[in-house]
């Protein structure tokens, strides 16, 4: 029982980070209808910036702010610089360009900083609070969870309640019609990328202190997990990202705890297939499109 509680708590903390990063994938998907394979590498660049800034100023929070700014900037540069050359005829072209961006960013980071990991400190203690003899969430885990849930709520609000959200979604779904209605589509797409990249950078920044340290590949597995999460939750749904993240986090934790780490990827595959066979558009899929 204690063990279960412990594993659940661990999984939740991990899942919150997955959720946050998945949220950034959902954002770009909503804004531009691309699965951004470069999201992880972009977030790592921003995290390097945060690392440098924190090193210079000694303040985690200034570092965090600079990661957000740098993340947003990366989004701007990647969207304006390369993504807009993607052919709109085929969504594949965006995916391929994103893969190219991953290669460019990771190799540049490798050339500039080498392959070694740099440790990063968390702003809050990572020692778990002990409840009834069982170590559960640490203050840092709680911080991550709160940020994830808060941000998700905020974004859900933006998307469903504000006109900005409406325009963001419309631009992604039907750029031409949106322009005919006076929506500044190019600006909306850029805004989506900036927002998403900033969220992605935040997720990577929150992840690194719980892992080995910062290196060019820090977010590789994060991307894969988060993509899974986004697909499980439904790519169009911010709440889906949150729920999916927590579900996947807990699943990995339980499987690792009871069956072994090796089995975890298989369990994730199993979950993915099971969810999609029942709901082909993810847990929070919109109604199926009428086809005739």
């Amino acid at each position, binding site marked *: 029982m204690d063990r279960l509680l412990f594993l659940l708590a661990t999984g939740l903390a991990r899942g919150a980070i997955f959720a946050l990063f998945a949220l950034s994938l959902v954002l770009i998907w909503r804004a531009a209808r691309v699965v951004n394979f470069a999201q992880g590498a972009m977030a790592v660049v921003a995290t390097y910036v945060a690392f440098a800034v924190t090193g210079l100023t000694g303040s985690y929070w200034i570092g965090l702010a600079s990661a957000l700014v740098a993340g947003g900037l990366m989004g701007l540069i990647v969207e304006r610089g390369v993504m807009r*050359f993607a052919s709109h005829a085929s969504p594949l*072209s965006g995916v391929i360009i994103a893969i190219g961006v991953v290669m460019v960013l990771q190799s540049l980071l490798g*050339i500039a900083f080498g392959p070694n990991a740099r440790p990063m400190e968390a702003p809050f203690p990572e020692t778990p609070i002990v409840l009834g003899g069982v170590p559960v969430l640490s203050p840092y885990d709680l911080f991550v969870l709160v940020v994830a849930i808060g941000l998700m709520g905020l974004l859900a609000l933006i998307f469903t309640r504000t006109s900005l959200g409406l325009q963001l979604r419309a631009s992604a*779904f039907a750029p031409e019609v949106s322009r005919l209605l006076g929506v500044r589509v190019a600006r909306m797409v850029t805004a989506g990328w900036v927002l998403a990249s900033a969220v992605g950078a935040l997720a990577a920044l929150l992840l690194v202190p719980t892992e080995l340290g910062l290196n060019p590949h820090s977010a590789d597995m994060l991307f894969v997990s988060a993509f*899974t999460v986004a697909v499980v939750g439904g790519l169009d749904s911010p709440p889906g990202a949150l729920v999916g993240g927590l579900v996947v986090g807990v699943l990995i934790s339980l499987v690792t705890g009871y069956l072994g780490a090796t089995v975890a990827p298989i369990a*994730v595959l199993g979950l993915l297939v099971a969810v999609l066979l029942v709901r082909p558009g993810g847990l929070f899929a919109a109604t199926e499109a009428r086809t005739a």
Partner: protein
Amino acid sequence: MSARTQTPRPQTPRTAGPLTTSIRAARPGASARRPTSRLLATALVLTLVAIGATFLLDPYRNYQFALIAATFCATAGLTLLIGLTGQLSLGHAALMAAGGYGYALAANALTDAGVDGVPRFVVSLAAAAAASALLGLLLGLAAARLKGPYLSGVTLVLVIALPAFTAVFSGVFRGDQGVQIAYDGVPPALRTLIAVEQWQAWVAILVAAAVVTWLAVLRNGPAGLRMRAVRDDETSARLQGVRAGRVKVLAFTASSIAAGAGGAVLCFVTQSVSPGAYTLAFSLLLVVAVVIGGLGSLLGAFLGSIVIVLLPWVIQTATGALDLSADAAQRLTGNLPVLVFGVLLIVVTAAWPGGIRAALPKRLRTKRMPRRGAPPMQTSTVAAAEPATVTPTAAPRHPDPEPRTSPAAEPIPTTTER
């Protein structure tokens, strides 16, 4: 067309007789299809040319040639899948691995049973095809229900889970180490004639030729037509009696068998198969090959395979020639090829959306793969009469008043070889 004049158009069926009665009798044998025999002849010639080319290459180039041929099996299958059915698989590395393991396990069992040489190869290849077909079938069943990124997600996680599978069932798959097989030398009859690398290249070329010809025949036939129908408009295809689910499963399975054959050839050439060789990065590289070669085109898949096999080597060789400090050399050695590859990828995708194939002279392009269509004669008469209507670049101009769902929710629009 008639709209160009105000007079009633000549071709209205107003004066035509009863419509449905005489249809069966009309114009027997007016087949639109290129004869399969011609396709086979082309394949034969190209295969012979490739075999001949191996005599001009040194062993290491022949080894690279074999790698290209093996990769070509997989990319050909992938390009067919993406180009003809619009299903994006990020998991073709796993399907190749399935073929590789099928081949290796069968080959080892046969070795234990005292079988070797060509019989061992053929039976193991069949086992590879069977293993990859099975995995492809399972994936295809999922794929029939999934769209766009959801399918990509499943295939992506499959590749990620591959090492876990080999570790969990390490009794069979031998974990990270992978499975090693006995060395297959040049058959005695040829031993004085060619080196082992050239022999391996021959085997790789023959397998690739068989696989790609099979895919080409498939694409040229009714199955290909059905796949394109499902990709263009699934609902409409179902209304024409096409069993969409079955078509998708078939496409996935066929594509998987091709990938599996590629994996088997790789295993044959390198005498081993291990999960580390079939990573997500490699899977993505296969997609990259298919896209920069030109989606849906077998020639494109071939060109793409050349690029992904040779480019890293070319760039690495080039960096090796630079005179750098130890530290800089070390950072650049591995990273510079990746950087150049990335930049190239972006530039090619942005500048030539049709891939390298589209940038080739037309004559080269059309030779390789015949496509369905009426005899060219008819086309030119129409062209003379109505230039505007045959412009192949014209997009659908009268958007059909139907719901347009998000691009990724619909099959990925791609072009097939024209």
